[in-house]
């Protein structure tokens, strides 16, 4: 259970977030960024397989998902997660530009795309609410 924090009010449910990225330095900064805003980062995953496993175990309300993962495309993971019952809100991210992925972001079922350099709690919150 979580304490009422700005993030949880906006989400409306528990502010549980899963961060998926193979770069631990990015994961730690993203965690700091989101936790400072009141989200509860319940798990981190370094590849697609870990991401699906963690999503099954923790049933997060939102997922910050890197498109470039070592074992499969983040877009594929997004589609898999979208097929579950009560799917989480997915925010795709990358060092690359959204334009590099064309319309595949839209077709993946994610709520939207955030470039890593522009990650802030406000923009994340805007996408998942």
């Amino acid at each position, binding site marked *: 259970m979580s304490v009422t924090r700005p993030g949880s009010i906006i989400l409306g449910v528990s502010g549980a977030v899963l961060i998926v990225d193979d770069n631990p330095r*990015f994961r730690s900064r993203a965690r700091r960024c989101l936790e400072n805003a009141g989200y509860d980062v319940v798990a981190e995953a370094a590849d697609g397989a870990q991401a699906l496993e963690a999503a099954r175990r923790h049933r997060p309300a939102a997922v910050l998902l890197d498109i470039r993962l070592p074992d499969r495309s983040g877009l594929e993971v997004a589609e898999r997660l979208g097929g579950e019952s009560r799917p989480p809100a997915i925010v795709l991210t990358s*060092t690359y530009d959204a334009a590099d992925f064309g319309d595949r972001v839209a077709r993946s079922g994610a709520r939207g795309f955030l470039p*890593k*350099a522009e*990650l*802030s709690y406000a923009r994340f919150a805007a996408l998942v609410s």
Partner: protein
Amino acid sequence: MSTLPRTERRRPHRLPRRVARSLAETADPRDALAGALRVVGESLGWQFGAVWEPAPGRPEVLHCVETWQANAAAHDFGLTSKSTLLAGGEGLPGRVWRDGEPAWIPDVLANSNFPRGPAARNAGLRAAFCFPIRSAGGMLGVMEFFTTNRRELDSELLATMATVGDQIGQVVERRRDTEALLAKEARHKAMLGTSLDCVVMMDHEGRVVDFNPAAERTFGYRAQDVVGREMAELIVPPELRERHRRGLSRYVATEEPTVLDRRFEITGMRADGTTFPVELAITRIDLPGPPTFAGYLRDITERKAAEADLRASRVRIVEAADDARRRLERDLHDGAQQRLVELAMDLRLARSRLDPDPAQARELLDSALEDLAAATAELRELAHGIHPAALTEGGLRPALEALVARCSVPARLLDAPDERLPAAVEATAYFTVGEALTNAVRHSEASRLEVEAELVEGRLRIKVRDDGRGGADPAGGSGLRGLADRIAALDGHLELESAPGVGTVLRAELPCGS
């Protein structure tokens, strides 16, 4: 000694017949003249005869090309004649040459126009006559005879000699034409014989007419075995024969040249059935009657192999360039770009914590400074790997010194040129040394490395030596192959010497001129 029986001599009217017989017996034009001199001289019983012709290269002057004497007394006169040159009108031969008419001198010693007077006196020669040697083409020269007594003009004899002069001229000219023709044929045969290209001649029915030595060697047939046989059966691969036959019969019927007089590449077949690429040009030989063709063929197996190598090398170079760009993109993305992303996140977070938590903000700013330093270092390394600033600014010496200094195994630069070289040469030399050092460090277990670059007669010679375990694969990895391609593209060459247990020496040579 005379060869004619006594009864035959001194019968001038028989001369034409005797001369004709003598001429018929000789094939060589020189022998014809010599024989005619002897026959006439002996028949008349005179003592000396000679033939004069225009001197080679100086047609206005006569020189003596042939002499005959009945005995040794006239020998010196012969020598004098052979070393004399006469202008038109000068002396007896000169007069006859100029006038084109026979001439008779009763006493040469009393004649004012006789330069050889003293020699004639010594030889006891007094009377002389001379007549033109004429052919259809004009006067070939003149023939003269001398005797020891003073003689008055014998008109009949002179007239007979004029006729004999025509006889001799005709035969000598014919003999010379034949000789020239034979020489030309021999030259052409030699040309075909020594030609490196195959020359095959074919008649209008496709049968081999001629097959030169190069064709024999290339196709593996002896000329004598293939003349008269169908060429398509011999040197055209089975699947191409019908096309060849159709083409030939179509040309013979229509005279429309579609393949004549241009080069094209086809496949040829050797006697043993193996095929090989051939460059072919066919011309029609201009002779009366049905067409005869000459085919000029060249085995281009080596050329095709070289072209294929060149194509493959170019593909490798383009792929290497693409690979390098991909690697660069990846290095930038995974390295410096990540750092900058992390930097942005730290700064953004620091800003948001500035009021609520200044201490955390300060920590985040310190972290940001570290990210920045790391990013800068990554970019510097990257730039250095692409093209080091030292090379552009200072040339090979400082760039190689830097390479050697960064090497993890002790390495020394023994020598490097101080002068600047063309950019492509400097870059290739730099990357060659870099690759060689990298390979040595990675594989050779060496304890010492030496690098040398020397400019010798417009060529840059590079040597990288290690004292490691040797046994390096001369085909090298893709790194060495990529280098070999770059070096070949500059017309240089690369070699690797790597005796097991002794160490490895990589040598490269690059031309620096334009």
